[in-house]
Protein backbone atom coordinates (compact mmCIF):
# COMPACT_ATOMS: atom_id res chain seq x y z
CA UNK A 1 0.00 0.00 0.00
CA UNK A 2 3.01 2.31 0.35
CA UNK A 3 3.61 4.89 -2.34
CA UNK A 4 7.35 4.26 -2.48
CA UNK A 5 8.02 6.57 -5.40
CA UNK A 6 5.61 9.43 -6.08
CA UNK A 7 5.92 11.21 -9.44
CA UNK A 8 5.94 14.65 -7.76
CA UNK A 9 6.88 13.99 -4.13
CA UNK A 10 9.70 11.53 -4.87
CA UNK A 11 10.92 8.73 -2.58
CA UNK A 12 9.92 8.19 1.05
CA UNK A 13 12.83 9.13 3.27
CA UNK A 14 11.93 8.11 6.82
CA UNK A 15 13.46 5.97 9.56
CA UNK A 16 11.93 2.54 10.15
CA UNK A 17 10.65 1.71 13.64
CA UNK A 18 8.69 -1.23 15.12
CA UNK A 19 5.21 -1.16 16.61
CA UNK A 20 2.82 -3.83 17.86
CA UNK A 21 -0.88 -3.97 17.06
CA UNK A 22 -3.01 -6.36 19.11
CA UNK A 23 0.19 -8.13 20.11
CA UNK A 24 1.63 -8.60 16.60
CA UNK A 25 4.85 -6.88 15.58
CA UNK A 26 4.84 -4.60 12.46
CA UNK A 27 7.25 -2.20 10.75
CA UNK A 28 6.33 1.50 10.53
CA UNK A 29 7.95 4.79 9.60
CA UNK A 30 8.85 7.26 12.33
CA UNK A 31 6.46 10.20 12.43
CA UNK A 32 3.69 8.70 10.28
CA UNK A 33 0.29 8.37 11.91
CA UNK A 34 -0.84 5.13 13.54
CA UNK A 35 -3.66 4.85 10.98
CA UNK A 36 -1.23 5.19 8.05
CA UNK A 37 1.25 2.71 9.54
CA UNK A 38 -1.47 0.09 10.05
CA UNK A 39 -2.96 0.64 6.59
CA UNK A 40 0.51 0.23 5.08
CA UNK A 41 0.44 -3.21 6.76
CA UNK A 42 -3.01 -3.87 5.21
CA UNK A 43 -4.91 -3.28 8.46
CA UNK A 44 -8.13 -1.24 8.23
CA UNK A 45 -10.00 -2.28 11.38
CA UNK A 46 -9.02 0.00 14.26
CA UNK A 47 -11.74 -0.75 16.81
CA UNK A 48 -15.12 -2.38 17.40
CA UNK A 49 -18.25 -0.37 18.14
CA UNK A 50 -19.64 -0.42 21.67
CA UNK A 51 -23.06 -1.45 20.38
CA UNK A 52 -23.00 -4.61 18.26
CA UNK A 53 -19.16 -4.86 18.19
CA UNK A 54 -19.04 -3.82 14.52
CA UNK A 55 -15.62 -3.08 12.99
CA UNK A 56 -14.66 0.58 12.45
CA UNK A 57 -11.77 2.29 10.66
CA UNK A 58 -10.80 5.87 9.91
CA UNK A 59 -13.39 8.24 8.48
CA UNK A 60 -12.41 11.92 8.46
CA UNK A 61 -8.66 11.37 8.72
CA UNK A 62 -8.16 14.78 10.34
CA UNK A 63 -9.07 14.30 13.99
CA UNK A 64 -12.71 15.42 13.94
CA UNK A 65 -14.91 12.33 14.05
CA UNK A 66 -13.25 10.07 16.66
CA UNK A 67 -14.05 6.95 14.61
CA UNK A 68 -10.41 5.81 14.88
CA UNK A 69 -10.02 5.44 18.66
CA UNK A 70 -7.32 2.99 19.78
CA UNK A 71 -5.51 2.30 23.06
CA UNK A 72 -1.85 3.35 22.93
CA UNK A 73 0.59 2.22 25.64
CA UNK A 74 -2.33 1.90 28.04
CA UNK A 75 -3.95 5.24 27.19
CA UNK A 76 -7.51 4.85 25.88
CA UNK A 77 -9.26 6.73 23.07
CA UNK A 78 -6.20 7.98 21.22
CA UNK A 79 -7.02 9.09 17.65
CA UNK A 80 -5.05 6.88 15.26
CA UNK A 81 -5.40 9.39 12.40
CA UNK A 82 -3.55 12.27 14.10
CA UNK A 83 -1.16 10.46 16.47
CA UNK A 84 2.35 9.70 15.23
CA UNK A 85 3.94 6.28 15.82
CA UNK A 86 7.00 5.86 18.03
CA UNK A 87 9.41 2.96 18.24
CA UNK A 88 8.04 0.09 20.40
CA UNK A 89 4.58 1.67 20.60
CA UNK A 90 1.93 -0.81 21.74
CA UNK A 91 -1.42 -0.27 20.03
CA UNK A 92 -4.60 -2.16 20.86
CA UNK A 93 -8.00 -1.96 19.13
CA UNK A 94 -10.61 -0.42 21.30
CA UNK A 95 -13.67 -2.55 21.91
CA UNK A 96 -11.94 -5.90 22.38
CA UNK A 97 -10.74 -7.24 25.73
CA UNK A 98 -7.02 -7.33 26.40
CA UNK A 99 -7.16 -11.04 27.26
CA UNK A 100 -8.60 -11.82 23.82
CA UNK A 101 -5.25 -10.97 22.30
Amino acid at each position, binding site marked *: *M*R*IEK*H*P*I*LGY*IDKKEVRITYNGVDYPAFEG*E*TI*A*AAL*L*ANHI*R*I*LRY*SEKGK*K*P*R*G*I*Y*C*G*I*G*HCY*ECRVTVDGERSVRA*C*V*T*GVKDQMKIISQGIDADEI
Partner: protein
Amino acid sequence: MLMKYDLVVIGAGPAGMGAAIIAASHGARVALVDENPVPGGKLRGQIYKEPKSGWWIGEKIARNMENKIKQLGVPCFLECEVWGIYPKWKVMLNNGEQLESDFVLIATGAAEKAIPIPGWTKPGVMAIGAAQVLANIQRVKPGNRVAIIGLDVLSLTIAYDLKMAGVDVVGIYLPPLNAFSSDKSNPLKMIAYLSSLSHLAPNPMLKLLGKIGQKESVQKLGVNYYPPFGMRVWGIPLHLRKAVVEITGNDIVEEIEIATVDRNGQLGRKQEKRISVDCVCISGGLLPLVELASAAGCECVHIEELGGLIPLYNDQLETTQSGVFVAGNSTGIEGAKVAMAQGELVGTVISDQIGLVKDGPELIKKAKEKVSLERKNAVIKFHPGLENGREKLERLSRISEVNHY
Protein backbone atom coordinates in the same frame (compact mmCIF):
# COMPACT_ATOMS: atom_id res chain seq x y z
CA MET B 1 -2.29 28.97 34.56
CA LEU B 2 -2.96 32.27 32.75
CA MET B 3 -0.77 33.76 30.06
CA LYS B 4 -1.08 37.19 28.40
CA TYR B 5 -0.53 37.97 24.72
CA ASP B 6 -1.41 40.66 22.19
CA LEU B 7 -2.86 38.11 19.77
CA VAL B 8 -3.94 34.51 20.14
CA VAL B 9 -4.30 32.68 16.81
CA ILE B 10 -6.59 29.65 16.81
CA GLY B 11 -5.67 27.27 13.98
CA ALA B 12 -2.24 26.84 12.39
CA GLY B 13 -3.40 26.43 8.79
CA PRO B 14 -2.21 28.84 6.07
CA ALA B 15 -4.50 31.60 7.42
CA GLY B 16 -3.41 31.33 11.07
CA MET B 17 0.28 30.93 10.27
CA GLY B 18 0.16 33.86 7.81
CA ALA B 19 -1.27 36.11 10.53
CA ALA B 20 1.15 34.90 13.22
CA ILE B 21 4.20 35.52 11.02
CA ILE B 22 3.18 39.08 10.08
CA ALA B 23 2.08 40.15 13.57
CA ALA B 24 5.13 38.61 15.28
CA SER B 25 7.52 40.16 12.77
CA HIS B 26 6.05 43.59 13.62
CA GLY B 27 6.83 42.82 17.26
CA ALA B 28 3.43 41.67 18.55
CA ARG B 29 3.37 39.01 21.28
CA VAL B 30 1.60 36.16 19.51
CA ALA B 31 0.56 32.66 20.57
CA LEU B 32 -0.50 29.99 18.09
CA VAL B 33 -2.83 27.11 19.01
CA ASP B 34 -3.69 24.00 16.99
CA GLU B 35 -5.28 20.71 17.91
CA ASN B 36 -3.03 18.83 15.51
CA PRO B 37 0.50 17.75 16.43
CA VAL B 38 1.87 19.28 13.19
CA PRO B 39 1.10 22.84 11.99
CA GLY B 40 -0.10 23.39 8.42
CA GLY B 41 -3.81 22.51 8.39
CA LYS B 42 -5.18 21.37 5.03
CA LEU B 43 -2.28 23.04 3.26
CA ARG B 44 -0.19 19.95 4.00
CA GLY B 45 -2.05 17.66 1.62
CA GLN B 46 -2.19 19.99 -1.38
CA ILE B 47 -0.24 19.50 -4.59
CA TYR B 48 -0.95 21.66 -7.63
CA LYS B 49 0.35 22.20 -11.03
CA GLU B 50 0.60 25.95 -11.34
CA PRO B 51 0.06 27.43 -14.79
CA LYS B 52 3.47 29.15 -14.76
CA SER B 53 5.69 28.07 -11.90
CA GLY B 54 5.25 24.28 -12.00
CA TRP B 55 4.37 22.10 -9.01
CA TRP B 56 3.28 23.79 -5.81
CA ILE B 57 3.77 21.49 -2.82
CA GLY B 58 1.74 22.48 0.26
CA GLU B 59 3.77 20.43 2.73
CA LYS B 60 6.97 22.30 1.78
CA ILE B 61 5.27 25.67 2.18
CA ALA B 62 3.85 24.62 5.54
CA ARG B 63 7.33 23.61 6.79
CA ASN B 64 8.79 26.96 5.63
CA MET B 65 6.09 28.84 7.50
CA GLU B 66 6.62 26.67 10.60
CA ASN B 67 10.35 27.48 10.53
CA LYS B 68 9.62 31.21 10.30
CA ILE B 69 7.26 30.95 13.27
CA LYS B 70 9.97 29.17 15.28
CA GLN B 71 12.57 31.79 14.32
CA LEU B 72 10.22 34.54 15.49
CA GLY B 73 9.89 32.74 18.84
CA VAL B 74 6.10 32.44 18.66
CA PRO B 75 4.95 29.94 21.33
CA CYS B 76 2.97 27.12 19.70
CA PHE B 77 0.40 25.19 21.69
CA LEU B 78 0.10 22.03 19.60
CA GLU B 79 -2.28 19.16 20.30
CA CYS B 80 -4.40 21.72 22.16
CA GLU B 81 -8.04 22.14 21.23
CA VAL B 82 -9.72 25.48 21.91
CA TRP B 83 -13.16 24.86 23.38
CA GLY B 84 -14.26 28.41 24.15
CA ILE B 85 -13.51 32.13 23.96
CA TYR B 86 -14.66 34.39 26.77
CA PRO B 87 -14.69 38.21 26.95
CA LYS B 88 -12.44 39.98 26.69
CA TRP B 89 -10.57 37.79 25.59
CA LYS B 90 -9.74 34.51 27.24
CA VAL B 91 -9.02 31.52 25.02
CA MET B 92 -9.70 28.23 26.78
CA LEU B 93 -7.59 25.17 25.96
CA ASN B 94 -8.63 21.58 26.63
CA ASN B 95 -5.52 20.98 28.76
CA GLY B 96 -6.85 23.49 31.29
CA GLU B 97 -4.63 26.39 30.20
CA GLN B 98 -6.07 29.86 29.52
CA LEU B 99 -4.52 32.36 27.13
CA GLU B 100 -5.48 36.00 27.64
CA SER B 101 -5.20 38.53 24.82
CA ASP B 102 -6.55 41.78 23.37
CA PHE B 103 -7.01 40.21 19.94
CA VAL B 104 -8.13 36.76 18.82
CA LEU B 105 -7.98 35.32 15.33
CA ILE B 106 -10.30 32.42 14.56
CA ALA B 107 -8.67 30.53 11.67
CA THR B 108 -10.17 27.11 12.26
CA GLY B 109 -10.71 26.25 8.59
CA ALA B 110 -13.39 23.90 7.30
CA ALA B 111 -14.69 20.39 7.82
CA GLU B 112 -16.28 17.98 5.37
CA LYS B 113 -20.02 17.46 5.21
CA ALA B 114 -21.01 13.84 5.51
CA ILE B 115 -23.40 11.98 3.22
CA PRO B 116 -24.57 8.82 4.96
CA ILE B 117 -24.92 5.86 2.58
CA PRO B 118 -25.90 2.32 3.59
CA GLY B 119 -22.72 0.52 4.67
CA TRP B 120 -20.68 3.70 5.20
CA THR B 121 -19.42 2.74 8.66
CA LYS B 122 -17.39 -0.18 7.25
CA PRO B 123 -13.62 0.18 7.47
CA GLY B 124 -12.44 1.26 4.02
CA VAL B 125 -15.08 4.00 3.66
CA MET B 126 -13.64 7.43 4.33
CA ALA B 127 -14.16 11.11 3.68
CA ILE B 128 -12.41 12.23 0.49
CA GLY B 129 -10.07 14.47 2.53
CA ALA B 130 -8.80 11.44 4.44
CA ALA B 131 -7.71 9.91 1.13
CA GLN B 132 -5.76 13.09 0.31
CA VAL B 133 -4.02 13.01 3.69
CA LEU B 134 -3.11 9.33 3.28
CA ALA B 135 -1.81 9.64 -0.28
CA ASN B 136 -0.10 13.04 -0.21
CA ILE B 137 1.11 13.38 3.38
CA GLN B 138 1.37 9.85 4.75
CA ARG B 139 2.30 8.31 1.40
CA VAL B 140 0.05 5.27 1.83
CA LYS B 141 -2.62 4.37 -0.72
CA PRO B 142 -6.10 4.63 0.79
CA GLY B 143 -6.93 1.56 -1.31
CA ASN B 144 -5.86 -0.25 -4.42
CA ARG B 145 -9.28 0.06 -6.10
CA VAL B 146 -11.11 3.19 -5.00
CA ALA B 147 -14.62 4.43 -5.82
CA ILE B 148 -15.47 8.11 -5.25
CA ILE B 149 -19.00 9.21 -4.38
CA GLY B 150 -19.87 12.87 -4.92
CA LEU B 151 -18.78 15.21 -7.71
CA ASP B 152 -17.20 18.53 -6.74
CA VAL B 153 -13.95 20.43 -7.11
CA LEU B 154 -12.42 18.67 -4.14
CA SER B 155 -13.33 15.14 -5.23
CA LEU B 156 -12.03 15.83 -8.74
CA THR B 157 -8.79 17.27 -7.39
CA ILE B 158 -8.28 14.31 -5.09
CA ALA B 159 -9.21 11.80 -7.81
CA TYR B 160 -6.28 13.24 -9.72
CA ASP B 161 -4.05 13.10 -6.59
CA LEU B 162 -4.94 9.41 -6.20
CA LYS B 163 -4.18 8.66 -9.80
CA MET B 164 -0.76 10.28 -9.42
CA ALA B 165 -0.22 8.05 -6.39
CA GLY B 166 -0.82 4.97 -8.53
CA VAL B 167 -4.31 4.16 -7.22
CA ASP B 168 -6.87 2.57 -9.57
CA VAL B 169 -9.83 4.96 -9.31
CA VAL B 170 -12.71 2.82 -10.61
CA GLY B 171 -15.06 5.76 -11.02
CA ILE B 172 -16.73 8.86 -9.66
CA TYR B 173 -20.42 8.21 -8.87
CA LEU B 174 -23.38 10.12 -7.50
CA PRO B 175 -24.64 9.57 -3.97
CA PRO B 176 -28.15 8.08 -3.66
CA LEU B 177 -30.89 10.67 -3.23
CA ASN B 178 -31.39 11.31 0.50
CA ALA B 179 -31.79 14.12 3.01
CA PHE B 180 -28.04 14.82 3.00
CA SER B 181 -27.13 14.46 -0.66
CA SER B 182 -29.05 17.54 -2.01
CA ASP B 183 -27.87 18.61 -5.50
CA LYS B 184 -25.10 16.04 -5.43
CA SER B 185 -27.47 13.25 -6.48
CA ASN B 186 -29.07 15.26 -9.29
CA PRO B 187 -27.52 14.56 -12.74
CA LEU B 188 -28.94 17.73 -14.30
CA LYS B 189 -27.49 19.94 -11.58
CA MET B 190 -24.17 18.12 -11.84
CA ILE B 191 -23.92 18.78 -15.60
CA ALA B 192 -24.52 22.47 -14.96
CA TYR B 193 -21.92 22.36 -12.20
CA LEU B 194 -19.36 20.76 -14.52
CA SER B 195 -19.77 23.50 -17.09
CA SER B 196 -19.23 26.14 -14.41
CA LEU B 197 -15.77 24.72 -13.75
CA SER B 198 -14.33 25.71 -17.11
CA HIS B 199 -12.58 28.84 -15.86
CA LEU B 200 -10.66 26.91 -13.25
CA ALA B 201 -7.42 25.13 -13.79
CA PRO B 202 -6.25 23.54 -10.56
CA ASN B 203 -4.90 20.67 -12.57
CA PRO B 204 -5.10 19.53 -16.15
CA MET B 205 -8.04 17.28 -15.34
CA LEU B 206 -10.33 20.00 -14.09
CA LYS B 207 -9.53 22.16 -17.06
CA LEU B 208 -10.52 19.36 -19.39
CA LEU B 209 -13.67 18.64 -17.40
CA GLY B 210 -14.81 22.21 -17.67
CA LYS B 211 -14.43 22.02 -21.41
CA ILE B 212 -16.40 18.80 -21.56
CA GLY B 213 -19.19 20.29 -19.45
CA GLN B 214 -19.32 23.25 -21.79
CA LYS B 215 -19.46 21.15 -24.91
CA GLU B 216 -22.76 21.92 -26.47
CA SER B 217 -23.39 18.28 -27.19
CA VAL B 218 -23.26 17.42 -23.52
CA GLN B 219 -25.31 20.38 -22.35
CA LYS B 220 -27.91 20.27 -25.07
CA LEU B 221 -28.50 16.60 -25.12
CA GLY B 222 -28.37 16.86 -21.39
CA VAL B 223 -28.16 13.86 -19.23
CA ASN B 224 -30.63 11.78 -21.21
CA TYR B 225 -27.90 10.86 -23.63
CA TYR B 226 -25.08 10.84 -21.16
CA PRO B 227 -23.18 7.69 -22.10
CA PRO B 228 -24.22 4.82 -19.84
CA PHE B 229 -20.57 3.79 -19.50
CA GLY B 230 -19.69 7.29 -18.31
CA MET B 231 -17.09 9.61 -19.70
CA ARG B 232 -13.42 8.96 -19.10
CA VAL B 233 -11.39 11.79 -17.69
CA TRP B 234 -7.72 10.93 -17.50
CA GLY B 235 -8.69 7.31 -17.39
CA ILE B 236 -11.19 7.84 -14.56
CA PRO B 237 -14.81 7.07 -15.48
CA LEU B 238 -17.18 9.86 -14.47
CA HIS B 239 -20.70 8.51 -14.00
CA LEU B 240 -23.44 11.11 -13.88
CA ARG B 241 -26.29 8.63 -14.23
CA LYS B 242 -25.20 6.11 -11.64
CA ALA B 243 -25.50 6.20 -7.89
CA VAL B 244 -23.84 3.99 -5.30
CA VAL B 245 -26.78 2.63 -3.32
CA GLU B 246 -24.91 0.40 -0.92
CA ILE B 247 -21.41 -0.40 0.28
CA THR B 248 -21.02 -4.06 1.21
CA GLY B 249 -18.42 -6.43 2.63
CA ASN B 250 -17.98 -8.86 5.48
CA ASP B 251 -15.83 -6.90 7.93
CA ILE B 252 -14.34 -4.36 5.57
CA VAL B 253 -15.37 -2.83 2.22
CA GLU B 254 -15.48 -5.40 -0.58
CA GLU B 255 -18.05 -4.15 -3.10
CA ILE B 256 -20.26 -1.25 -4.08
CA GLU B 257 -23.73 -1.67 -5.49
CA ILE B 258 -24.59 0.68 -8.32
CA ALA B 259 -27.98 1.65 -9.71
CA THR B 260 -28.95 3.80 -12.69
CA VAL B 261 -30.82 7.00 -11.88
CA ASP B 262 -33.04 9.25 -13.99
CA ARG B 263 -32.19 12.86 -14.84
CA ASN B 264 -33.43 14.02 -11.44
CA GLY B 265 -31.58 11.43 -9.46
CA GLN B 266 -34.51 9.08 -8.83
CA LEU B 267 -33.56 5.42 -8.88
CA GLY B 268 -34.45 3.64 -12.11
CA ARG B 269 -35.80 0.16 -12.62
CA LYS B 270 -32.65 -1.06 -14.31
CA GLN B 271 -30.74 -3.88 -12.74
CA GLU B 272 -28.17 -3.09 -10.14
CA LYS B 273 -24.54 -3.89 -10.63
CA ARG B 274 -21.74 -4.77 -8.20
CA ILE B 275 -18.15 -3.63 -8.50
CA SER B 276 -15.34 -4.86 -6.30
CA VAL B 277 -13.35 -2.16 -4.48
CA ASP B 278 -11.35 -1.96 -1.25
CA CYS B 279 -11.97 1.71 -0.50
CA VAL B 280 -14.83 4.18 -0.98
CA CYS B 281 -14.36 7.95 -0.60
CA ILE B 282 -17.36 10.16 0.09
CA SER B 283 -17.28 13.85 -0.86
CA GLY B 284 -20.11 15.92 0.59
CA GLY B 285 -18.55 19.38 0.26
CA LEU B 286 -16.90 21.71 2.77
CA LEU B 287 -18.39 23.53 5.72
CA PRO B 288 -16.71 26.51 7.49
CA LEU B 289 -15.99 25.76 11.16
CA VAL B 290 -17.65 28.62 13.02
CA GLU B 291 -18.68 27.21 16.42
CA LEU B 292 -16.04 29.25 18.27
CA ALA B 293 -17.09 32.50 16.60
CA SER B 294 -20.75 32.02 17.45
CA ALA B 295 -19.87 30.98 21.00
CA ALA B 296 -17.88 34.24 21.31
CA GLY B 297 -21.06 36.12 20.36
CA CYS B 298 -20.13 37.01 16.77
CA GLU B 299 -23.14 37.57 14.54
CA CYS B 300 -23.36 34.84 11.87
CA VAL B 301 -25.12 34.78 8.50
CA HIS B 302 -25.94 32.01 6.05
CA ILE B 303 -24.38 32.47 2.61
CA GLU B 304 -24.63 29.38 0.44
CA GLU B 305 -21.90 30.46 -2.01
CA LEU B 306 -19.38 30.81 0.81
CA GLY B 307 -20.14 27.37 2.23
CA GLY B 308 -23.02 28.02 4.66
CA LEU B 309 -23.04 29.70 8.05
CA ILE B 310 -20.21 32.22 8.51
CA PRO B 311 -19.46 35.03 10.93
CA LEU B 312 -20.21 38.51 9.65
CA TYR B 313 -16.99 40.48 9.18
CA ASN B 314 -15.90 43.84 7.78
CA ASP B 315 -13.30 44.61 5.11
CA GLN B 316 -10.54 44.21 7.71
CA LEU B 317 -11.90 40.75 8.65
CA GLU B 318 -13.00 41.87 12.11
CA THR B 319 -16.23 40.25 13.33
CA THR B 320 -19.08 42.02 15.15
CA GLN B 321 -17.17 41.38 18.41
CA SER B 322 -14.40 43.95 18.56
CA GLY B 323 -10.98 42.33 18.75
CA VAL B 324 -12.17 39.02 17.28
CA PHE B 325 -11.02 38.44 13.70
CA VAL B 326 -11.55 35.64 11.18
CA ALA B 327 -9.44 34.49 8.22
CA GLY B 328 -9.22 31.57 5.84
CA ASN B 329 -11.98 29.02 5.39
CA SER B 330 -13.87 30.28 8.45
CA THR B 331 -14.73 33.32 6.25
CA GLY B 332 -15.90 31.15 3.31
CA ILE B 333 -14.49 28.21 1.36
CA GLU B 334 -11.53 29.22 -0.81
CA GLY B 335 -8.03 27.95 -1.57
CA ALA B 336 -4.92 28.07 0.58
CA LYS B 337 -3.30 31.13 -1.02
CA VAL B 338 -6.36 33.29 -0.37
CA ALA B 339 -6.41 31.99 3.22
CA MET B 340 -2.75 32.91 3.68
CA ALA B 341 -3.26 36.43 2.28
CA GLN B 342 -6.30 36.94 4.54
CA GLY B 343 -4.20 35.89 7.52
CA GLU B 344 -1.50 38.37 6.56
CA LEU B 345 -4.13 41.12 6.31
CA VAL B 346 -5.33 40.36 9.84
CA GLY B 347 -1.72 40.33 11.11
CA THR B 348 -1.20 43.77 9.55
CA VAL B 349 -4.47 45.27 10.85
CA ILE B 350 -3.80 44.08 14.40
CA SER B 351 -0.17 45.30 14.36
CA ASP B 352 -1.52 48.69 13.27
CA GLN B 353 -4.18 48.75 16.00
CA ILE B 354 -1.54 47.97 18.64
CA GLY B 355 0.58 50.83 17.25
CA LEU B 356 3.50 48.72 16.06
CA VAL B 357 3.70 50.01 12.49
CA LYS B 358 4.32 53.50 11.15
CA ASP B 359 2.65 53.33 7.77
CA GLY B 360 -0.39 51.29 8.81
CA PRO B 361 -2.96 52.44 6.23
CA GLU B 362 -0.51 51.87 3.37
CA LEU B 363 0.41 48.36 4.61
CA ILE B 364 -3.26 47.47 5.09
CA LYS B 365 -4.08 48.67 1.59
CA LYS B 366 -1.30 46.49 0.17
CA ALA B 367 -2.44 43.47 2.21
CA LYS B 368 -6.00 43.91 0.91
CA GLU B 369 -4.73 44.11 -2.65
CA LYS B 370 -2.87 40.85 -2.12
CA VAL B 371 -6.08 39.11 -1.02
CA SER B 372 -7.86 40.36 -4.16
CA LEU B 373 -4.99 39.30 -6.38
CA GLU B 374 -4.82 35.79 -4.90
CA ARG B 375 -8.56 35.50 -5.31
CA LYS B 376 -8.34 36.54 -8.93
CA ASN B 377 -5.48 34.13 -9.69
CA ALA B 378 -6.92 31.27 -7.66
CA VAL B 379 -6.40 27.91 -9.33
CA ILE B 380 -9.37 26.49 -7.49
CA LYS B 381 -12.80 27.94 -6.84
CA PHE B 382 -15.06 25.88 -4.64
CA HIS B 383 -18.36 27.52 -5.58
CA PRO B 384 -19.16 29.01 -8.99
CA GLY B 385 -21.05 31.86 -7.27
CA LEU B 386 -18.21 32.87 -4.96
CA GLU B 387 -18.13 36.52 -6.09
CA ASN B 388 -21.86 36.83 -5.53
CA GLY B 389 -21.48 35.42 -2.06
CA ARG B 390 -18.74 37.91 -1.20
CA GLU B 391 -20.90 40.80 -2.38
CA LYS B 392 -23.84 39.60 -0.29
CA LEU B 393 -21.59 39.43 2.72
CA GLU B 394 -20.22 42.95 2.18
CA ARG B 395 -23.75 44.32 1.94
CA LEU B 396 -24.85 42.56 5.12
CA SER B 397 -21.74 43.72 6.92
CA ARG B 398 -22.39 47.37 5.97
CA ILE B 399 -25.99 47.11 7.19
CA SER B 400 -24.82 45.59 10.44
CA GLU B 401 -22.26 48.39 10.98
CA VAL B 402 -24.93 51.04 10.42
CA ASN B 403 -27.20 49.30 12.93
CA HIS B 404 -24.51 49.07 15.55
CA TYR B 405 -23.66 52.71 15.15
